[in-house]
Structure formats: structure tokens, C-alpha cells
């Protein structure tokens, strides 16, 4: 019992000393610390940009995908029974989310309201030249092509169409942008980890004799490593401050500019709140983790016996 308590007190003391030593080391190796912090800052700014781009591209893709509809026209000679048949067949398809029927009479009314010329023309015709139609919404963009094909096979359907080609191109372009930015983020994070680990290696190099002595007098590896890990943690946290501020202010400004400008009216950005705070938190965590991992990696070399 008593021994356990002593061990706990010891562990606490080692922790306390580690934090104290890491703080000292940050100031003692000021220029190297600045270098680490700067490289973290720069990469995290790039990471922030990448996150903003990815998330917004994702957002736009989703909103485009929501509009994915197939317009189906029934043939002219179709009977009411056939209409019901078509509707129930389409409804049964797995990929279909929603189906909306519009009869030719409804179309006629709508078109008449659209313009006076149309109204006069339509009224002068003996028969209704328009067709009964369905607007079909699908669940996923991938379902568009196969569902359309299947609908075309149904008896009494004259045509079924969607924005063939273009929609898929937009979405695949967006997907490329998304993958590219995610790849960039990962690459940047790895690079930062290496840079921090190299910077800390330099500070460690100057403290090699200290580590040597610590090992000789019997410091456990963990108590040698902890101060350096804390140091990396601190450098990472400090390095993420500026990117966090830039993200918060920058995004608010961007949102206002894009929102008020007509050129970008198709692009709808994600609302800044709570997105910016979430992004900042991600940056902080990345900074801290990268700093810790980088420095832990750097000391490991000196702990091998």
C-alpha cells in the first residue's frame, strides 16, 4: 500500500519535472523553437485551407446530388390504367426515393400561366398536345443511369431523361478535388511531423550529454522522453494559434464576400458557425499530435542501448 503511494508520488513528480523542463527547453532553444513553430504554422494554414475547400466541395456536391431527378413522359395513347401501372412499377424500384405525377391537364394549366401566346395557342388546339409526366427522384447519383434505363423499358413510357453526362462530370470532378485535397492534408501533416521531429532532433543533439547522463544514472526511458514529448506538444499548440485565428476570421470574411457577390451565387458556402470552431479544434489537435509524435520519434534514437 505504502509502496504504491510512493510510486504514485514519484510518477507525479516526474510528470511535474517533465513539464517544467519542457517549458525551460522551449525558451532555452528559442531560435529552434521558433523554427518549429513557424513550420507548424505554415503547414497548418495549408491544412486549414484544404479542410475549408474539401468540406465546401463536399457540401456543394451534396446539394447538387439532391437535385438529381429523372423526367419521364408517357406516350400519347396511354390509358389511365397504364399510368397507374407505370407509377407503381417505378415506385417499386429500390433506387427511387420519390415520384411525382403531373397530368397533361396540369401541364396545360401551368403553361397557360407561363405566357399569353402559349395560352392562346393551347386553347385553339382541339387536342392537348402535352404529355402526362412523372418526376422521379433517385437516392444516389449512381442510380441515375440504370434507373433511367429500366424506366424506358416500361410499357407506355415514351421517354425518360436526366441531365445525362453533365451531372456525372461535375460530381466526378468534385470527387477528384476532394481526394486531392484530402491527400494533400495527409501529406502536409506527415511533412510537418518530420520537420518538427528534425527540429527537436537538433535541440536534442545539443542535450545529448544530458540524456547520456540521465541514462547512466538510471532514468527510465519514459522520464527521459516525457519532457521532449511535452516540448513537441507545446510547440504544436503554439504553432496552431495563428492558423486557428486565420481560419476563424478568414472564413467569416470569405463567407460574407461570397454570399454577397452575384458571381458566386451558385456556390453556397457552409455557414461559418460552428464550422470554423470545429476546424480550429481539428487544427489544434493536429498540431499537438504532430508535435508529440515528431518529438517522441526524435528521442527514440537516443534511447536505444
Amino acid at each position, binding site marked *: 500500500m505504502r509502496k504504491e503511494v510512493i510510486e504514485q508520488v514519484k510518477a507525479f513528480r516526474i510528470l511535474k*519535472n517533465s513539464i517544467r523542463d519542457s517549458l525551460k527547453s522551449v525558451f532555452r532553444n528559442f531560435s529552434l523553437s521558433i523554427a518549429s513553430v513557424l513550420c507548424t504554422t505554415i503547414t497548418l494554414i495549408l491544412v486549414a485551407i484544404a479542410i475549408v475547400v474539401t468540406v465546401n466541395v463536399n457540401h456543394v456536391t451534396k446539394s447538387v446530388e439532391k437535385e438529381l431527378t429523372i423526367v419521364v413522359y408517357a406516350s400519347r395513347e396511354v390509358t389511365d390504367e397504364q399510368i397507374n401501372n407505370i407509377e407503381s412499377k417505378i415506385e417499386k424500384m429500390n433506387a427511387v426515393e420519390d415520384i411525382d405525377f403531373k397530368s397533361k391537364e396540369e401541364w396545360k394549366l401551368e403553361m397557360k400561366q407561363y405566357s399569353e401566346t402559349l395560352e392562346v395557342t393551347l386553347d385553339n388546339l382541339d387536342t392537348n398536345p402535352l404529355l402526362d409526366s412523372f418526376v422521379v427522384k433517385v437516392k444516389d447519383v449512381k442510380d441515375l443511369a440504370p434507373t433511367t434505363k429500366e424506366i424506358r423499358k416500361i410499357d407506355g413510357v415514351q421517354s425518360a431523361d436526366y441531365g445525362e453526362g453533365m451531372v456525372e462530370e461535375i460530381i466526378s470532378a468534385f470527387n477528384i478535388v476532394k481526394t486531392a485535397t484530402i491527400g494533400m492534408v495527409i501529406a502536409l501533416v506527415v511533412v510537418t511531423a518530420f520537420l518538427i521531429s528534425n527540429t527537436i532532433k537538433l535541440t536534442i543533439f545539443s542535450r545529448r550529454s544530458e540524456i547520456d547522463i540521465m*541514462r547512466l544514472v*538510471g*532514468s*527510465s526511458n519514459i522520464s527521459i522522453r516525457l519532457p521532449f514529448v511535452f516540448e513537441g506538444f507545446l510547440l504544436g499548440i503554439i504553432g496552431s494559434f495563428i492558423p486557428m485565428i486565420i481560419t476563424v476570421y478568414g472564413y467569416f470574411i470569405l463567407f460574407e464576400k461570397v454570399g454577397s457577390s452575384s458571381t458566386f451565387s451558385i456556390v453556397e458556402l457552409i455557414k461559418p458557425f460552428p464550422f470554423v470552431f470545429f476546424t480550429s479544434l481539428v487544427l489544434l489537435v493536429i498540431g499537438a499530435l504532430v508535435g508529440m509524435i515528431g518529438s517522441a520519434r526524435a528521442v527514440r534514437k537516443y534511447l536505444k*542501448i
Partner: protein
Amino acid sequence: MKFIQIKNCYKVYKNGVTAVADLTLNIDKGEFVFVIGASGSGKSTLIKMLYREEKPTKGIVQLGGINVGKLKNRTVYKLRRKLGIVFQDFKLLPKLTVYENVAFALECIGMKNSEIRPKVLKALEHVGLKDKIRSFPNELSGGEQQRVCIARAIVNEPKLLICDEPTGNLDANTSKEIMEVLDTINNNLGTTIIMATHDLEIVKRMKRRVLVLDSGVLSKDYEKGSYRTSESV
């Protein structure tokens, strides 16, 4: 059981050099043993295997019942806490005072400040440096610096003190002082001491057990006092 047991021990470095070959020896508790031999004879390797800086390639190195060669890297510190090690190049931290340098060894193992103080003062008293506790290493002479190292090595009351050419950087008179300090530690505290050295004058004068290494092989093992001037190394 003997305090230190080395049995059929080999050490071959990665570059193919055999530093120690088929070494077998026993050392009792409280002994003072010199290890001598030309450069490259395996003295340092033997010393390094004792504090597990190097692992034996084959054979057993046992220290107080612990098979040192089998220790895992992360548990080596437990062995080091039971040893004191003194080097030729002192290995003091220049930014710390004499007191802090000695206390550093105890801080590293997580001891409380109130426990550290009396231990450090006692160790510094043993080496006769109690009046210099506030000095920095570069304000001390070589002999004094080496005495700080000895104080740091014995501050945790180790059973074994390992010295790798502790007088290598010092002149004859200072070496003599250092040897007196080591001698008192051996006599008064009962600490076992193993010391590698080039300095045959010291070895002759001390009249202790002497191990002679020759290209990795234990060529002679002189009992206490039987080593004579005429022997060449």
C-alpha cells in the same frame, strides 16, 4: 554465489571485431579490481557489458544475480540505479553547480528534494568537496571535477562502482588523490569497485587484484598484492 559472475562470455561487434573472447571470471562483494591491458584489449567492452551499454554476444554476465545480457532496453534503468559509473571525461553538466550535478542523479530517479539534500551533502563529504557545492564545473580543477563525478556515482549508495579510466585525464598527483578517494569508498562503504586503467603506477601502488586482458582474452589474474612491477602489459 559470487557478486559478479562472467561465464564464457564473448563479444563480437557488428563489424566483425571480437572484443572479448571466452571470458570467465568471478568477483566478490567488496573487492577492488583493476582491469589493465593495451588499447583494444577489450577493457572498455568488459566495463560496458557490466553496465549493459553493450550486450554479450554469447555467454553470461551476471551482476548480483541479475543476468545483465538478458535485460530489456526499457528495464536497463533499474540496473543503472544500483550502479555508480565514473568516466575519464567526467560527463558533468556545465550549466549546473556541483551540488546540482550530484543531485541530478537523484532527481532523475524521482526522489524527493528533502531526501536528496542530505544524500548529496554526504556524498560530497566523502570526496572532500563539501565547501565547493556552489561552484560550476568549469571553475574546478580536473581532479575536483572527477571527484564530483565520483560523488554523483556513489550518491545513490550503489553496491558496485564502475570506473573507466578515471585518472586518464589527470596528472600523477591528482590521480593519487582520486585513488585515495576510491580507496576510502571501498574501505568505508564496502562498495565493490572495478576500474579499467592504463596507469600501471597506480596499479602497483594499490596492491589489489589485477585482471590483465590481452586481445579480448583474460591472460592473467593476479590475486590481491601479487602484481609486480616487472610485468609488462
